[in-house]
Each structure stands twice: as C-alpha cells, then as structure tokens.
C-alpha cells in the first residue's frame, strides 16, 4: 500500500474513516448519526458507542488473527517440544527445549542443512539471473523501437499464462535427453534446475519491469547519450540504479517462487542430498516411518523464518507488485 494509503489524519484519511464507519454502523444496527458523534474528541468514554464504532472491528480482528496465527503458534510450540510425536505436540508450550532443533540439524539420515543450502543457492541464483535477464529485456522493450516489439510484448503476456509446471513431462524428457549428452547440466543437477527456472524468467517478470521502466523519463537517457555514454553504459550505470525498487520486488517474488516450487524440482533433483527444502521436507513427512513431528516443525520454522522476515521487511514493495498481477 505504499502509495495508495491515505495518510492517517489527513483529510482523505479522515473522510474515508467517517464513511467507512457510517457504513459499518448501519450494518451493525446503530444509528449513523450517533456513531458519528461518538467519534468526536473529548467526551466521556462509553462502551456501547465505542463498540458500535470501532470495538466490534477489534473483535473481528481478534477472531481473524486467531485463525491466521494458530497454525503458526502450533508449529512453534511443537518445534520447542523435546518429545517428538504428533500427539505429544498437542499440549501447547507444555515443554520448552531446543532438542528438536538439534535433531533436525544433526540427524545424518535427514540432510536438512544441505537442503537448506541447496534451496538458498538455487533460489538465490535464479532470483539474480531472473532479474538480470528480465531487466535486459524490459530495457529493450521500453527504450527501443524495433520490428516485432509489439509482437514480443504480447507473446510474453500470453506465455506467462502457461506456467512451466504444465509442461513438466516434457521438461523431464528434455532434461533427460540433455543428461545423455551433458551430464553436468542435466537431470539431478542444480544448474539444470536453474536453467529450467530461467525459462520462466522473461514470461512472468518482464511485463512488470517494463511498466516500471516506462516511468523513468527518457530525457535521462538522452542527456547521458549527449554526454557520450553508449547504450550499455546508460543501462548498467544509470537505468539499473533508477529501477532498483522493481528489481528488488522481482528478485523477492522469484526467490519465493523457487523456494515454493515442488513439481519441477522433485522431477529434476533425484538424489536426496541434491534436493531442495520443498522436495526434501515433503518426502520426509510423507514417509510413514518418520514420526519425529517436533524435528519437522523445527525444520519448518528454520525454513520459513528467512522468507517471512524478508517478506515483512519488503512488504510495501511486494504489495505494489501484487496489485500488478503477480500471484503467489
């Protein structure tokens, strides 16, 4: 909501609040006039009026927060539970200990740290290269006029409707053919998976970036050109810095996408020690012989923490990107 949210206290914000309150007061069965008066300053606190105006909103808020957070509370509680079973995790915060964290990090049968590192490498490299490839293409579409430009843009919009996952069978067969010639970039390699993800780099993100590139005035390019800068220098030293916010958004969305991606990753990465968190943890808990729920919860907390923190830290940028059509 970076740009759209009215500043609290400003006229817009107050007006919005007034009208919203009136609407809600009507729905709550109260008299709008009364409710409006209740908003005035310096009057004795009266619960009924407070409740009709904003109190019930807090009630809704509490219910929703409980719904939103109870799985989170559950998983944190069970990760702190030294007792490993699912049943033992039901008494919330009955025991506090970090045994489960130690177990998931050191269990030789479960290469959790390797999965974590694989995920960071694959998602990180994919994010950086996706941003780079997308920015190159967006620069061309935004700043140059050439035959096939409109066709190229339309193709990209159309192609992004078909996620790669739909072609997973063909991706697997193409990658196994590549394995026959070049095992180093074929099945069961991180480079192979990253290459597949890069296939989606242009489709999803170029249009998002293209819009943002268009907001940078072209007079900047012209000034630099008059000063003798070539196209590459304009791109790398001037434009890339001006569009940094959209680069951050695309990098983050791409990162989260790769962390979450299961279908292609599970097909391409065969050996356990090559897999990502999504593939490894899913196979771990679906194995009926694995009963250490606490260790899984600890792993889930460790895995989710960086993504959640990154997300909350960059949320105002992400929300802007979301409205532009990126769906997680």
């Amino acid at each position: 909501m970076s740009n759209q949210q009215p500043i609290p206290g400003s006229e817009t914000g107050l007006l919005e609040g007034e009208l919203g309150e009136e609407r809600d007061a009507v729905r709550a069965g109260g008299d709008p006039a009364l409710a409006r008066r209740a908003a005035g300053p310096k009057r004795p606190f009266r619960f009924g009026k407070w409740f009709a105006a904003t109190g019930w909103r807090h009630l809704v808020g509490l219910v929703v927060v409980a719904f939103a957070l109870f799985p989170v509370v559950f998983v944190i509680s069970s990760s702190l539970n030294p007792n490993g079973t699912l049943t033992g995790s039901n008494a919330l915060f009955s025991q506090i200990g970090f045994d489960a964290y130690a177990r998931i990090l050191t269990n030789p049968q479960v290469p959790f740290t390797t999965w974590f590192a694989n995920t960071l490498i694959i998602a990180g490299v994919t994010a950086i290269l996706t941003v780079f490839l997308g920015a190159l293409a967006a620069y061309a579409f935004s700043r140059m006029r050439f035959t096939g430009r409109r066709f190229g843009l339309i193709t990209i919009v159309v192609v992004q409707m078909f996620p790669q996952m739909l072609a997973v069978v063909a991706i697997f067969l193409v990658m196994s053919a590549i394995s026959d010639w070049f095992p180093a970039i074929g099945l069961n390699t991180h480079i192979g998976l990253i290459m597949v993800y890069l296939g989606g780099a242009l489709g999803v993100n170029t249009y998002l970036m293209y819009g943002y590139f268009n907001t940078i005035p072209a007079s900047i390019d012209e000034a630099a050109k008059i000063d003798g800068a070539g196209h590459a220098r304009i791109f790398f030293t001037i434009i890339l810095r001006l569009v940094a916010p959209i680069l951050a958004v695309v990098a983050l969305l791409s990162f989260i996408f790769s962390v979450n991606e299961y279908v292609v990753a599970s097909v391409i990465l065969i050996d356990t020690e090559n897999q990502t968190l999504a593939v490894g943890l899913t196979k771990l808990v679906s194995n009926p012989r694995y009963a250490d729920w606490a260790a899984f919860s600890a792993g889930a907390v460790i895995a989710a923490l960086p993504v959640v923190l990154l997300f909350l830290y960059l949320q105002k940028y992400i929300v802007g990107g979301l409205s532009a059509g990126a769906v997680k």
Partner: protein
Amino acid sequence: MSTTIDEDVATGSATPPTKRQKRAARIADAASGGIRSILVKLLLLGIVDAIAVYAILVLALSQDWLVLAIVAGVTVLVNWIYFSRRTLPAKYLTPGVIFLVLFQVFVLVYTGYIAFTNYGTGHNGSKEQAVSSLMAASLERVPDSPTYRVTVVDQLGTLGLLVTDPNGDASLGTTEQPLQPVDPSEVDGGKAVAVDGWTTLQFSDVIARTNEITELAVPFSDDPNDGAIRTPDGSSGYLYTSNLEYDEAAGTMTDLSTGTVYSDIGTGAFTAEDGSEILPGWQITVGFDNFVRAVTDTRLAGPLVYVTLWTFAFALISVATTFFLGLFLAIVFNDMRMKGRRYYRVAMIIPYAIPSFLSALVWAGMMNESFGFINQVIFGGASIPWLTDPWMAKLSVIIVNLWLGFPYMFLICTGALQSIPDDVNEASSIDGASAWQTFRHIKLPLLLVSVAPLLIASFAFNFNNFNVIYMLTNGGPRDTGAPIPVGFTDILISMVYKVAFTGQNRDYGLAAAYSIIIFIVVAVISIIAFRRTKSLEEIN
C-alpha cells in the same frame, strides 16, 4: 515512451539517416565504449563459444546431427548479434529469449507431441534400443561354447574386451561396438594382453570392477542373433546367445525356448498372437489414442470427469471464499480511527509470507484424524476424518486454501478501496444515498473494475494450485477403482504429475494428454482475461 536510443533501428523514423549521420553515430558509439567493456564482451563471447564448440564435439560423437545443427546455428546467430552494429534490441533480448524458447515455448509444444505418443514405462526409446535390450536381457551361455581368452581393457572409463579366439586371432569390442579384429601390441603366451589406445586392467582393478566386468556383454557381430562374449572372471570369456531370435526382415522376435513368435503389429512392442507383449517396447506415435483412452475407457473416464469438475469447483470456491473474506476484512479495517490496525495487518499477512508448501504440511499434521491438534484439542478428542473422507477432504482443502489466500485478497481489496476517490462518497451522500447503497451501487462496481483481472489471475493460479493439494491430502483419499494413482481431491495438474511420475507405471503420453486439457482451459481463461482487461491494447 516514444524516444529511442538508437535511431538506426527505429522502424518508423521519418527520414533515413544520411551517410554522414551514420558515420558520426558510429564514431560516437565507438568513442563511448571503453577498451575494458570490449574486453569483457570478447571474454564472455569467448566462453560461450568455447562451451558451444565443446557441445558440438559431444553431439558429433553421439551423432545427433539435428541438435548439433541447432546448437551451431544458435551460436553463429549469437556471435552475429553481438558483433553486428545493427542488432541493438537483440543484444538485450537474446539471453532471456534463449531460455524462454527452450524451457517455456518448446516444452509446451513438445508436451503436445508427447500426448500423441505412447511414451512411458516400457516405451522409452527407439526400436533398435528395444531389440538390443531384449536380446541382452535374455542372454544365456551356449553349452558347448569354446573358451575365449580375454583381457579387460579400458579407454576413458569405457570397458572393452580384448578377445583372443581359439585360433589365436585377436579382436576388440565394447558393449556398444561389436568385436573387430585388432593388432595386439603385446602378446603373452598366445594371448593378446595389450593394444594401442587402451589401458590393460591390472588384477586389482579387475577385482575392484568385478560388477561392471561381469555385466559387460560384447556383441559378437553386427547381427544381434550371433550373441555376445561375456566373461565371468575377467580372464576367460564364453559365447552367450539370446534365447530370443530377431528376424529383421520380418520384424519378428521368436522365443527359441517356447517357439512363440512375437511380431511388430504397430503398437510399439513385440506382440504374440494371443496379445501378450514382451517389454521393453519402443516409442511410436499413437495418434489420438491417449485422448480416446482417457475419454472412453470407463475406468479412466470416471476419474477424469470428477477431477475436472473438482478442479473448476476448487478454483471457483477458492477465489470466492478468499475474495469475500478479504473484502470483508478490508472494509472492517479500513477505518482511520481504529487503533492498532498495523498490528492486525502484520498478523494477517503472516500466512501469506510463509512458504505455502510448509503451511500445507503443517495443516496436514494438524488435521490428522487420530493425533492431530484440531481433532484432539479443538474438538476435544473427536475423530473427524478431515483428510480421509472424500467430502471432508474437499472441505479441508478449501479451508486451508482460504487460510493461505485471504491475506492476498485483503491486501488488494484494501488497496482498491483506498484508491476510490472520495468525492464519490460525498456526491452520493449529497444525493441521499445510504452508506450501504453507496457501497453496493458505487464502490463495489468500482472495486470490481480494478480487482476483476486479479480475480481471473487468481482463478488461473488456483486452477493449477498443485502445492496445497499435493502437500495436504496428496490428492487422497485414493480412488481404488482407478487404474492410475488418482484420488478424490486431485486436481488436473496433480493428476498429471501422479500419472507421469508416481506409481509403478509412468505413462507420459496419457499425462501429456491431460496437460493438453489444462492448456485449453488456461487458454480460454486468458482470452477472457484479455478481452476484459484490454491489456493487450494498451501495448503501444
């Protein structure tokens, strides 16, 4: 945006630049690029070309001429693009486009092709590969085989046999390459022990690689019916022949022990008269067989119908529930006087920030029928079959997807509500409209205009929302009546995945045929989306 950097490539420039202008532009361009950037460019292109040359060599060795031609063509094109002065946009587009074409466009087209083949377990390669693997699998030692004295030799990791036949003639061959006469470089007591270009394995190496060596079967000649030389100990070899006989002219396989004749009747496997097949077979195009099978085979048609219906229902209900909850919350929290809205917002975003595969796995644990938190604590020890009853599992999937999706809808609805200009409210209240009327007849339509494209995108996303289905219920409960591993909460994409990659038999052809169904639905959705949003017309 009508300005261009490089007028040379402008298609619509009014007057073509004069010769002088062109020369001036060239000089300016050359002056701007430093020697360093030229070096970087040369270095990068050098690396690309080196990799390409290596790739071409590898492809030449395996004689894949078509792929080789494509790689060579692309390499030449890339070099031309980066050395020519007239291809500025292509310099920026090429890197992304190469990946896009290979891993997005080509694979979609290739999926279409696979749908018309019998690709899958038992039908993986060409007919020649099927014949040689059938022959190799049925090799048996010829009872009165002469003893061939052999030496195991190695060339870059490939094992070969240096065979000295009873007459004292030496020949060399590998699994791929039938025996051919050679001149041994060293002969020890009538037995050839070394040959130029190959390393003779020492006794300790033979012990270390026993498994590889005993697996080695060197064809006696080009005709697979002549059998192969195998060695059980690395020093003496015997002739093994297959108990299948392949008649290339008639295209038949005869089982010598039973006398059954299997012939190629165009189904991609050698088939006997009673219909029994010997596998592996080979890959052929089968026309519309996969589609016909999916629709007319009653055991497949049933699952296809309910999976398709459920996919639509799941996507529609998910969009509707998340949108209405999100909109309701956006209205509730869109009040400037309410304190602490920021904290509510952060708490509500958390489900959206957690990677969805983790959330779904945690929910699966909580919904466990006998031990889960929901049954044990919230419902006080009830045993509600959240994930094991066909209908309850559907409900659970919807609930979990609501949990995963409502924050997104809350965020976009809040944004849309706040971007509606406030004079709308003013005008309607002056005209005497109630707050509800203002909302229902003015704000909601305005909101829908900006949110509708996102709702369509959300539908398309949920249509293929693999993670929530696969991690939560794994598509289950399993439909035991179906010959493919499909369950009652499977959506089309998870069914594609399971048919192709899980279970005993991988059926790529059928899976690709199911993918085609998704293509068609997605294409229809995108046409509707583009019609509504007119986003394509905005591209100038």
